[in-house]
């Protein structure tokens, strides 16, 4: 029961899980009511994001994808500026030009977010090459899903990173779904890690719904990449418990499978562990939840109050 003994602040991890869930739920509510555009939520995958991001160093760079709210929030992004971006407002991290699907925050090291499935995989080796050739210590963490692992770019990327000794930590959030297709229908292997091993790089798999296990596994994998300056792959098994995009009735989802994963909710798992270890009292839990809800309410209000970009900005930043 002390698997989180290495987690510096287990309560901080727990609060991040709550924050991500509250953020996504606010978007779900807002999109149902027509106030906020629908997004690809990371509900069900919060532990994978929080565990992995907290294992990285401040000078590491992160490439992610359309399901990125967890990565951004765990890295310290302001939910108000994220929501402003989702709502196409001026105060969004990308000045309203991205929307939810490709939010980058350079100041946090979250670079080149792309919604083209596999796009982040094609960019990661180059970012790592720039780190290496300019003598920068930070490694590159590239977040992608099982869908992206079926793209050619996954295989080209691993081959080149292995060939050129590039410090990329490939982090696969295997959430079992590739848009509206279950990964069983799309993958010739059970695990993405099997493919990674084919490129001669170290691979690990971890329960992606256990934030402490993810933290530990990512620390080990990141250390390995940092020490060897070679790529490694970490596959986190998790589940997308909401649809591909809001709204999505999930009519195509096997109910028994969904129920089984909902019973392994990453927030509940973390909460139970903290309570069992005497690290979280019910009153403190309620206090944390209230703090998170208040933060998200402030963020929603901030985003809603932010102005839309001026039409003159339509052609701003096309060219450098």
């Amino acid at each position, binding site marked *: 029961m002390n698997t989180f003994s290495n987690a510096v602040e287990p309560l901080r991890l727990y609060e991040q899980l709550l924050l991500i869930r509250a953020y996504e739920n606010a978007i779900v509510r807002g999109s149902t009511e027509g106030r906020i555009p629908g997004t690809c939520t990371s509900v069900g995958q919060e532990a994978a994001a929080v565990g992995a991001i907290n294992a990285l160093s401040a000078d590491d760079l992160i490439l992610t994808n359309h399901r990125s709210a967890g990565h951004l929030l765990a890295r310290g992004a302001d939910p108000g500026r994220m929501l402003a971006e989702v709502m196409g407002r001026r105060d969004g991290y*990308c000045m309203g*030009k991205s929307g939810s699907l490709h939010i980058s925050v350079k100041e946090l090291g979250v670079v080149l*977010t792309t919604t083209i499935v596999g796009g982040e995989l094609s960019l990661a080796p*180059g970012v790592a090459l720039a780190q290496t050739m300019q003598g920068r210590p930070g490694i590159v963490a590239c977040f992608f899903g099982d869908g992206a692992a079926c793209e050619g770019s996954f295989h080209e*990327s691993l081959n*080149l990173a292995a*060939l050129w000794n590039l410090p990329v930590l490939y982090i696969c959030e295997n959430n079992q779904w590739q848009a509206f297709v279950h990964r069983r229908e799309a993958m010739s292997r059970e695990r993405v890690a099997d493919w990674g091993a084919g490129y001669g790089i170290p691979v690990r798999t971890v329960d992606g719904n256990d934030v402490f296990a993810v933290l530990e596994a990512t620390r080990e994998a990141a250390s390995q990449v940092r020490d060897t300056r070679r790529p490694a792959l970490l596959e986190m098994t998790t589940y997308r418990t909401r649809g591909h995009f809001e709204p999505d009735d999930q009519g195509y989802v096997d109910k028994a499978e969904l129920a089984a994963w909902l019973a392994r909710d990453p927030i509940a798992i973390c909460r139970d562990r903290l309570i069992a270890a005497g690290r979280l009292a019910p009153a403190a839990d309620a206090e944390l939840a209230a703090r998170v809800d208040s933060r998200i309410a402030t963020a929603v209000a901030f985003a809603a109050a932010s102005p839309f970009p001026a039409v003159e900005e339509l052609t701003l930043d096309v*060219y450098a």
Partner: protein
Amino acid sequence: MPTLTLNDAVGLALAEEMRRDHKVIAFGEGIATKRHELVTEFGALRVRNTPLAEGIIAGTAVGAAAGGLRPVADLLFAPFLCYAMDELVNSAGKLRYMSGGQFSFPLVTLAMTGAGWGIGAQHNHNIEAWFVHSPGLKVVMPSTPADARGLLKAAIRDDNPVVFLLDIGLLYQPGEVPHEADPMPLGQAATLRSGNDVSLISYGKTVHHCEQAAESLATEGITAEVIDLRSLKPLDEAAILATARKTGRVVVVHEANRLCGVGAEVAALLAEQAFTRLKAPVIRLGGPDAPVPSSFPLEQATVPQADAIAAAARRLSAPQPA
């Protein structure tokens, strides 16, 4: 003035820029093999061969550019860029804008294209208009060794992604290259020959066909102005409008498919902004809407030749029907 081939002028520009800026690196399909002198001077880390995997080559260039380097990626032949379209169009061309200007992508993609070697439609396809149509990208296609060197130097120093196309038919044609090593600004057309009666606007190898046509027209008393666009985006609209207003007659010439080619944009620009100064309709000469065949006479038939250009100019110079 030293004489170099266009291919050697590209090598010279690469060497000069790598010498000048340690952030310039070059990688691609056989570049370390074919330009081994760069490996000798700059080392195997800055000049690398890659797998024959255009997507990851281009993607690596995009990532490296965002990370602070100035990569030049050699993808060999333009049709191979089809494998790199996501990286060039969706990433290099869009991620600056989509991130609200947080990143820039100073990279150059080199690729050969055009008739001359009879290598068929999967190695020869003039797809430059695709990239002109894609926001965020610049497109350059030089017609001489001197321009190739000067424009490549500017492309490498540019903070935007540049698709730099090399005309296969010109690669081993020698030309004078000045001692001066200054870059030539992108977006400036060159007036290669002055004339008053008709303007011949082109880029790539058909620039030379336009010059030949102008020679033969001169013997008939028709003076043709020859404009080499050199860069297709940015497009030197001022130079296009100036020559059209001067002569009132324009033939636009390129090897690429005439349908939705760069010539269509030039003709549309003239219709919008120089209509009242035109004395005759604009003529576009371009390749057919067909893959380029390997057979030499058929391949050559896809390229507007000097006699066809001269004939078009004569048609425009004849009295126009009322």
